[in-house]
Structure formats: structure tokens, C-alpha cells
């Protein structure tokens, strides 16, 4: 799962696509790791734009939780936003909406990070 990134002020946005399940989570975890480290190093929050994610399994949710825990131990932060309805329901069913910070839209996620991140997002 190739992960391109874009920075908005104090936030880095990644947009995983497709399915995050037993087959893809290992590669996703490897692709995510350098971004988590870069965010810790540069003092950025990591925002996952999940609008392109079609499905997430328990193994995929675990990857997200581990990344969020790693970020938290380094005083960094991972939030998720813009989930498709199916993924949003899976978050509710698994109670992961209580584990990760979830926002309905990218803008709301970036507002929660900082005014600079939201302003940079608004500028496009």
C-alpha cells in the first residue's frame, strides 16, 4: 500500500487506500513507520485520511493502534478522518472509536491539530 504524504502546517497527512487486512497490514505497518518517526522528529501530528480505505480488519485496526501508541510515547499524535461508511461502522463495532481519535472530515481533524494546520489546509 503506497503512502504518499503531504504536510499542512504542523500536520502530515497520509491517505491509505484499498483494504487494510491480514494480507496487507504488514506492508502498511512498514510503510507507516518512517512517517511516524518523521512526525516524532519534526513535532508533527499524523492525520490519516481514510476516505480511500474500503475495508479494515482486526489486524489492520491493530496496526493503527500500535502506531498511535508509538506516537503517544513520543509525545506525538495520530488521528483518523473521513472514513467511508463501512469503515466507520467497523470502528464502532470494534469499539475502536474509543481507542483512536476519529474526525468526520479532514478539516475537523486539522483544526484539532492546530490553527496553522487548518489554515494551510484551507489554502489548498
Amino acid at each position, binding site marked *: 500500500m503506497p503512502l504518499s504524504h503531504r504536510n499542512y502546517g504542523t500536520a502530515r497527512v497520509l491517505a491509505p487506500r484499498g483494504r487494510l487486512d*491480514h494480507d496487507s497490514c504488514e506492508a502498511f505497518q512498514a510503510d507507516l513507520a518512517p512517517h511516524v518517526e518523521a512526525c516524532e522528529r519534526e513535532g508533527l501530528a499524523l492525520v490519516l485520511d481514510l476516505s480511500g480505505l474500503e*475495508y479494515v*480488519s*482486526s*489486524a489492520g*485496526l*491493530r496496526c493503527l*493502534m500500535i502506531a498511535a501508541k508509538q506516537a503517544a510515547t513520543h509525545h506525538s499524535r495520530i488521528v483518523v478522518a473521513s472514513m467511508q461508511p*463501512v469503515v466507520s*461502522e*467497523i470502528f*464502532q*463495532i*470494534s*469499539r*475502536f472509536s*474509543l*481507542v483512536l481519535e476519529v474526525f468526520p472530515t479532514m478539516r475537523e481533524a486539522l483544526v484539532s491539530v492546530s490553527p496553522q494546520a487548518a489554515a494551510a489546509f484551507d489554502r489548498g
Partner: protein
Amino acid sequence: MRVRFWGTRGSIPVGLTAADIRDKLAQALLAASGQRFASYGEAHAFAERELPFSLGHTYGGHSSCVELETGHEEYFVCDMGSGARAFGAHVLARQGGRPATINVFMSHVHWDHIMGFPFFGPAYVPRTRIRIYGCHDILEQAFRLQQAPPCFPVAFDQLGAAIEFVKLEPGQTREVSGLSVTPLLQRHSGDSFGFRFVSLGKSVVYSTDSEHKLEERAETERFVAFFRGADLVIFDAMYSLADAISVKADWGHSSNVIGVELCQMARARHLVLFHHEPANNDTAIEGLLRDARRLEQLTRGTQQLQISAAHDGLEIEL
């Protein structure tokens, strides 16, 4: 084959309180407002069909005990939790004085899985035969220990039945009076073992007190193979997924979500959520069932997986 659930609660038996019953009654009366019932039968049918299960019934409180009825005159049962007391009364009533032979399959010997044995009536009846099967070396020791002073007034050696302990080996199939049984090692403190039973072409997997580490692909594949095509999978669904892999990681239990995923991968037919968390009331258990069914609907491939939540008294005919 018929599967009969005598105890479905995890860790410790749970009883409804007076306040729980009062609350259910008050809500049921509200739901029945404006209805008229000419007989007990009509009122009974309303409670059965119109009220949510969590309101008109209860998932129950006895700890693990599940009977498999194969049509053979001998009895087969998984675990001797507190549900074994009622199971024992059932055996005695059905035998009508004739001696019974009971085959017990033990997932492990944690207290909630053995605590019913001192109250298992047939154990006190001479000429009854009880064979206790399991993979743990300390199986007999555990049964004797809980009846040793000062824990219980009747010592194990004073029991009237002829009791035999039979060691099973993980991965090795054994025939027990027409029932084929294969144990599988599971992740749990002190180890636990799941059992796959086959009788007359029907298969039942009993897999409780089993934690699944999602990062272990080989382990996942092992369980998928064990559950493969099963007619019924009785599954430890004690926690939500979030709890099972975060705050309650390494507590030795699993979740409704992992049960659905494993059964879908294995193309099993019917998943039964089992070993309910003692802190969960009937509404919470019904919520976990609803969530599991919705997840199955969202992720269904070509085969539908039926999902139920076990309750004390549930019978499933295969």
C-alpha cells in the same frame, strides 16, 4: 447432534439481582401497554416473540458447561463449570436410576471450568462411570484439590462414581464412544485446549478461553484450519476487539469481531458467542451479538455465517 448449553458465562457465575428483575418487569409492562392477554399462553407468547431477548429472558449466569448429545446412550460434555449442577440433575432425571456413563472434555482447569464438579449429582451415584479427558498433566490434581479440606466437605475419594482421567494429545484424534475428538493448543494462562468434535457427519468446535494474537499469521491459519467448515463454532467472545487487544491484551480471551473473521475465513456455518464477560448485563451481550451480526453482513462473501449468543438453556440442533 444436539448441543445444549448449561453454562455460558466467563470467569465467575453471575446471578440476576432483585433490581435486575424489577427493571425487566417494568420495561416489559411498558412494552405490553394496551395489550390484553386472555391466558397465560398468550402472555407467554408475547414475552417469547415480541420482547427483545435481553428483556424477556437472560443470557444467564452459570460458568462453562456444554453438552453434546449424539444419540449414543453415553453423555458427552465440555467443562465442569457451575452449569454442571443442572446438567447433573438432567442426567439423573433421564437415567431414572440406571447408572450413567459420562465423558467430560476439559478445556483447562481454571476454577470457573471445574467448580461445578463437587455439585455434579451423578458423581455421588455408585456404578456411574465418569471419564474425564484433557491434555493437562495436572487434570486429576486440580479436581482433587478443589475437594480437599478445607475447601469442600466431601473428599474426591468419597465420591460414589468410578472416575477415570484420560490424557489426550493435541492434534491427535481419538474416538470416544462414536464421537471423534481432536484437541488444539490455545493461548491462555497455563494453556487451554479447544476441541473439534465430529459425529455422524456433523462437526462442532468448542474453543473457549483462547486469545488470538493478530500478528501471528501461522496461529491464525492454525485456527482457520481447526474451524474449517464446522457446523458450529462455540467461541470465546468475552471482550470487544478494542479491549481484547489493548487494555485486556494477554488476559487470555477473545472478541466477537475475531470470532466472525476466523469463522468467515474457515467458512464455518454457525458462530456462537460464548464465555460472556461477567460485567456485561443482558443488554450489553445483546449489543455484542448485534455488532457481530452487522459485521458479518458488512463483510459477507458467498456464504452467510449464522451468529448466536449462547445462553443457559440454549439448544442447537445440527
